[in-house]
């Protein structure tokens, strides 16, 4: 970048050939710098993967089989898509990524039903909520009363059905839970988890296709597939509950996507990639089994995902931290999403521009931009002082960790939601006001639905940031080793990054190059899937607008 010579008086084209060479070098240098940054991190990632998988411990024949059955067909297909059919390529990568992301989500849902709300608790909650909703609807039909009476009735119904007054009025929810006979766990899930999902699917398909029949078929198929698990689950070697979660969380989105690609008729050949991959894996497994090749001695295996921490590296696992991360993310999402979106709506739709309040709003805007740059460790101190020292909560419990991280990602959620809301064309708002809608009705029915994809993208990215945060958790006293998964939001927990840090402190080679690498890989895969989903969502809706 030798541009120090005084060029103010010089004619720009005067140095002809030389400047061409200089320009080329400059361009190459800039490209090289970009690639260098990416390459360095790529090298680190390869090292982590090698440490976690230990490819050297496998038979060369095992690798040859994998290459022949899985890698070569996949690469060939990818080359074909790149060269001849980019649209099919997009379909192919979505069709491969979607099942993987959905399986991770299914794992999260499974953890929720296993550790946070048992199927029976969920049943009681859903039934109580339905009763509450029904009671409010009936009241609404019978007495068209003013807002205050409705609010009061709403509060009473909520107390009677869901919350209850401890010691005085048992809630409907706890009454249901204390019933002597409750349906089996999978049956309760079928009724209160699968059926609502099926209703949503049916509604969505009906709207997309504008056909009553298609909606019924889609909804019915969802329930039928889940119910089939009573027979097919044990045959396939999984419990009915697992089957049920897999079919609803993985089967439904994959089915909808495949169906849409097939009926759209665009890029159908992209579906060949996941089919080829799946077939390749099956063939590979059969060949390896019959020929007796030994596979690599991977650190990142099923035991790693389901064990707790152990001093013996081979037996150490990440399960309690995984559960802790899922629970923490639930707290973060519940706390940061409504507040963040609410603040964004206020700033974009309600905030006055002039007067005293206007300057307050300006202050809020500047403040949010600055909060986004406050170091995460300072948020940890805030959490420590606010929730533990002042609020009297116990250090290291899920709710404290979650709320602290929620404060940290709040500015990110607000800024991205503001951008999404700003992107909604003003003409739509004017149209709604012109029809006599109030401000809140406009926000609820016009602005929010259009801005939702953008808001969700920003929120997923922010939650990805939340999953990886370590320093705030250290500050609020999240324990180094937690061997038992937390059972409530007030239980002690560990999270994945916290667990990684305590392994890093152990300073043993087997932990460095085995357990730690496997844990890093798990964390990165989760993050990659979340960020990938967010970016896909963004691209899809950006193109539509």
């Amino acid at each position: 970048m030798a541009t120090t010579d005084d060029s103010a008086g010089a004619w720009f084209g005067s140095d002809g050939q030389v400047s061409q060479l200089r320009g080329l070098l400059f361009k190459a240098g800039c490209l090289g710098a970009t690639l260098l940054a990416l390459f360095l991190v790529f090298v680190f990632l390869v090292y982590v993967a090698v440490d976690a998988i230990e490819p050297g411990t496998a038979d060369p024949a095992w690798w040859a089989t994998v290459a022949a059955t899985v890698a070569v067909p996949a690469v060939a297909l990818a080359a074909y898509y790149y060269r001849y059919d980019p649209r099919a390529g997009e379909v192919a990568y979505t069709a491969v990524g979607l099942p993987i992301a959905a399986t991770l989500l299914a794992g999260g849902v499974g953890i929720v039903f296993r550790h946070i709300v048992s199927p029976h608790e969920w049943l009681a909650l859903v039934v109580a909520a339905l009763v509450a909703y029904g009671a409010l609807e009936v009241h609404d039909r019978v007495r068209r009363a003013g807002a205050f009476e409705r609010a009061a009735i709403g509060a009473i119904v909520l107390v009677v059905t869901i919350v209850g007054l401890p010691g005085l009025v048992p809630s409907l929810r706890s009454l249901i839970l204390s019933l002597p006979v409750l349906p089996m766990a999978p049956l309760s899930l079928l009724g209160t988890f699968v059926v609502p999902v099926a209703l949503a699917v049916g509604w969505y398909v009906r709207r997309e296709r504008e056909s009553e029949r298609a909606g019924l078929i889609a909804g019915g198929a969802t329930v039928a597939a889940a119910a089939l698990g009573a027979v097919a689950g044990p045959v396939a070697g999984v419990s009915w509950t697992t089957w049920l979660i897999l079919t609803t969380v993985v089967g439904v989105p994959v089915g909808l996507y495949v169906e849409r690609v097939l009926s759209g008729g665009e890029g159908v050949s992209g579906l060949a990639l996941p089919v080829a991959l799946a077939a390749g894996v099956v063939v590979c497994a059969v060949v390896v089994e019959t020929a007796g090749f030994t596979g690599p001695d991977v650190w990142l295996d099923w035991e790693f995902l389901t064990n707790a921490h152990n001093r013996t590296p081979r037996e150490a696992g990440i399960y309690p931290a995984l559960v802790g991360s899922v629970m923490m993310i639930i707290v973060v999402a519940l706390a940061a999403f409504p507040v963040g979106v609410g603040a964004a709506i206020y700033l974009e739709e309600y905030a006055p521009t002039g007067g005293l309040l206007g300057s307050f709003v300006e202050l809020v805007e500047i403040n949010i931009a600055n909060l986004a740059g406050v170091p995460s460790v300072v948020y940890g101190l805030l959490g420590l002082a606010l929730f533990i020292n002042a609020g009297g909560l116990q250090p290291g419990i899920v709710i404290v960790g979650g709320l602290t991280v929620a404060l940290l990602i709040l500015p990110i959620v607000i800024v991205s939601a503001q951008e999404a809301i700003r992107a909604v064309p003003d003409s739509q708002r004017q149209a709604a006001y012109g029809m006599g809608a109030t401000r809140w009705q406009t926000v609820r029915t016009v602005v929010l639905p259009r801005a939702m994809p953008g808001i969700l993208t920003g929120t997923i990215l922010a939650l990805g940031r939340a999953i990886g945060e370590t320093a705030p958790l250290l500050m609020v006293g999240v324990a180094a080793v937690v061997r038992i998964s937390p059972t409530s939001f007030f239980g002690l927990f560990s999270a994945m990054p916290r667990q990684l840090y305590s392994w890093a402190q152990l300073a043993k080679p087997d932990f460095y190059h085995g357990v730690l690498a496997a844990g890093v890989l798990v964390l990165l895969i989760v993050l990659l899937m979340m960020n990938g989903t967010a970016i896909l969502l963004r691209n899809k809706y950006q193109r539509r607008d």
Partner: protein
Amino acid sequence: MSDTPIEADLTRSANGRIAKERLYHGLLFCCAALTVFVTVGIVATLAIDALEFFGRVDPYAFFTGTEWVLRSENPILGILPLLSATLVVTVVSALVAIPIGTAAAVYLSEYASDRMRSVLKPALEILAGIPTVVYGFFALVYLTPWLQQIGLGVSLFNLLSASIMVGIMIIPMVSSISEDAMSAVPDSLRQAGYGLGATKFEVSTKIVIPASISGIFSSYILALSRAIGETMIVVVAGGSRARMFDPSQPFANLLNSGQTMTAAMVQAVTTDLSGGTAGYYSMFAIGLTLFAITFSMNLLSNRIAARYREEYQ
């Protein structure tokens, strides 16, 4: 939750509707006001506990002390060793991130084809999404042994490898904000340059970069403030022995372990200091210092960035 989107509800009294509107307005306002509360909360909690700390330790001794030994009994608390280590990390990471990040921004904004950009930008975004504890792990487990292999006598925990990793971490920040600034330069300026017979190189370095210099500087300041506040990388890879910067051997400081302000805070909270001792409260004093530094840097960066936005809109 009804299916009909906008209810043409003319029978209900307007009072209810107005009350509802007011309720939502108030709720949303509270959400926005909460963010101010967060800032006030940070300042207040840090200030209260820092005052508690300065009741036990002389502020002058704290800000000028050149030794930091954290223990329950008679700790020696002087912030300068921590400040110097933070400075070292910031300077080295800036040396890594600023040239690479700026060059990447120039490439993405001026040279890259659409296809290239559609690959490189998400890749850089992914770089920005990697958790810092993972970067710390990279530094400790891979980078430090490499540095040892190429003959730098680094110890197991050292500031050099931590700083390089912090630099790599903040590259996406420099490149994406600088690129936004460069893309905001109107094309008419570039075309005027080409019209005078300038080459692409000359347009990039003599027109685009000077025109977007305020945005580029704002990205530098923001990235440096991020480096100052970075915790996990230096905690994992930098070690936990506070050393005062020794100007007679500048490189020795890099090759040995050191403790930054953030690392000292983590150490104060993770070692079993009984609450109420000066050592425990010291982290609030450090936190306040850290917050003051980063907050003013962010404020400065936003001011500078606001200038270039005004210039071209």
